[in-house]
Each structure stands twice: as C-alpha cells, then as structure tokens.
C-alpha cells in the first residue's frame, strides 16, 4: 500500500466506514511508514478531542423559555390580526358614510345630476361598441378558422390536386404581377 492509499483509508476510518480488513492494512502501513503514522496519530487526537467536546446541555429552563417565546409570538400575531380587521372595518364604514353623503349631495344638485346621467349614457355607448367589436372579431376569426381547416383538409386528402392548384395560383400571381410591372413601365 502506498501513502496515498493509506491517506484515503484514514479518511474512511474517520468517516466510520472502514472495514476490519482495511483497518488492519492501514495499521500495518502506519507502523512501517513514520510519516503516515504521525499523520494518523495526530488526526486521531485532533478529531477525537473535537468529538468529545461536541455536545452541550442547554440550561434547565430552556423548554419553558422556548414555549414562552412561542406563546408571546402567537399573542402578537393575534393582536396584529385584530388590529388589521379593525382598520379594515373602519375604512369600510368611513367609505360607506362618505358614499352616502356624496350620493345625497349629487341627487340634490341639478348640474351634477345631469353630468351623472351623461356619464351613464356614455358608459352605455362604450359598452355597445365593445360588444360589437367582440362580435365582429368572433365572426372574422370563425371565417379564418374555417378557411384554414378547409385548406388543411384539402391538402391532406388530395395532395396532388392541392399541389397542382397551388402551382397554378402561384404562376397566375407571377404572370399578373409581371403584366402590371410592364404596364407601369409603359406609362412611365
């Protein structure tokens, strides 16, 4: 065994994963190799002392302190929740009162009443425009969808005819574009 292998076995030993056979091999090497022997001895001492001093007992009243802290936190959360509910109710109540005052003022004021009526009419008109636009959009998208579906079905079922028709259409388009180009040159 060389020193590098011995070092790997040392690490396995401190991991608690060394088999008896491997431990015997490691001990044999450390007995013969002074450097590895010193290293293994030093690591055993250092890590052993670390493990010995690892666990600490908490104070006797630790559990009580923890539960007290938890109860305090829960009481604080409850208080904050109650405060938030109170604030929301207050805002809501104030809002209702203000709204009532505003409505009563508006209903008594001629100019404001006329303005409210116009605003109502305007919102009705806007709603009609939106409805019409939505219906027009649905109609156009339906037609587009139908055309695309027809196209796809035609391509799938009669591909050769589809290819022929597409070719004729492209050729016609090319011829027509060329004719238009010649006319423009003649005019120019």
């Amino acid at each position, binding site marked *: 065994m060389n020193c590098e292998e011995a070092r790997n076995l040392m690490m396995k030993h401190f991991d608690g994963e060394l088999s008896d056979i491997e431990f015997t091999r490691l001990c044999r090497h450390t007995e013969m190799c002074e450097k590895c022997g010193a290293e293994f001895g030093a*690591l055993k001492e250092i890590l052993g002392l670390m493990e010995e001093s690892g666990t600490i007992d908490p104070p006797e009243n630790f559990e009580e*302190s923890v539960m007290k802290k938890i109860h305090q*936190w829960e009481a604080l959360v409850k208080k904050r929740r109650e405060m938030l509910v109170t604030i929301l109710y207050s805002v809501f109540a104030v809002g209702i009162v203000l709204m009532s005052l505003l409505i009563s003022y508006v209903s008594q004021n001629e100019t404001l009443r006329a303005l409210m009526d116009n605003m109502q009419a305007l919102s009705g008109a806007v709603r009609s425009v939106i409805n019409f636009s939505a219906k027009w959009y649905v109609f156009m998208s339906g037609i587009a969808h139908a055309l695309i579906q027809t196209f796809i079905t035609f391509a799938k079922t009669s591909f050769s005819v589809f290819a022929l028709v597409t070719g004729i259409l492209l050729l016609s388009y090319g011829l027509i574009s060329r004719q238009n180009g010649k006319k423009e040159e003649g005019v120019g």
Partner: protein
Amino acid sequence: MEIPDSDVVKMCLNGNKEAFSILVARYKKLIYSVVYNMIEDKEEVNDISQEVFLRIYKSLDRYNPEYRFSTWSVKIATNLCLDIIRRKKIQSVPIEEAFGISSNSDTPEESVFKTERIREINEAVDSLPEKYRIPIILFHRNGLSYEEMTKVLNEPMSIIKNRLYRARLMLREKLASYRKEEVL
C-alpha cells in the same frame, strides 16, 4: 412507545400547540450544541437556540415527513447561525470557557493539557474558511452523517466529502505549525 416526530407535528398543526414541547425536549440538546459550536457567547447561544425553535414552530406546515425531523431542524439552525455569522461576524467561542471537558479520570496536569489542546484545536477550526469549517463542525462536533449534511447544506455528497477531507488535513497542518511556533 414514543410518538413519531411526524405525528407530533400533525398534532401541533391540528391545534394542539403544547405538543410542540415534546419536540423541544427531544431536540434541545442537538440544536443547542449546533448553535453553540457555531456562535460565540452563552447568552447569544441561548437566545439564538430559542429563536431556532420559534422558526421551526412557524415552519411546521412546511415540514416534509419523508425527511428526519432532526435533519430538517439542524438545517434551520445552521442557516440561522450562518446568517448571524455573516451579518455580525461572530466568532466561535473557546470551548473551555463554558463547560468542563476534562474527564474524571484525568489528572490535574492532563486536564490542563487537554483544555489547552482543545483551545488550540478550536482556534484552528475557527481560522478555517467557512466552506471547510462548517462540514467539520457538523460531522465531528455535532455527529451528523453525510446524508444529513447533504440535506442541511444543500450540497452533493461528493463535494461535502472532499471539503471534509480537506478540512481535516488543513486542521492538521495548522496545528502542526502551532507546535513548530511553540518550539521556536
């Protein structure tokens, strides 16, 4: 027969808040040790350990019973300690200041030597870079397994093993250099 941790968690989530004291009693030593080994003075350790349990309590609805409760709670403790260390740059405490570490079988001279040796080891551990210091503390002081450490540190096992191996060698080299300085 002991109630499983997951059942105690369910009891707490169903409204039996006092059941949490069962978990506190079971894991207070583990959590206190983890915090103690990573943070400075006694008062801070006590407060921080209590804060860890409060965080655990607040996060009970996020506990996954597939994992061990000890691993999950150590992860919360480690994360909190790391946050505090990075914010306040608190150093680990020399261990001999807090609790007696000498065994009854040590002579007074052996006891003094042991205390001094542990002080040196502690100093050397504190001087390690964080990514090496944390694994060696969790493994050799807090007794976590590699599997638990992968969950606590959110790193692959191969990386943790490499860092732990490296940490052991760095510690050995540092302590060897202390010895040389003492001789000189």
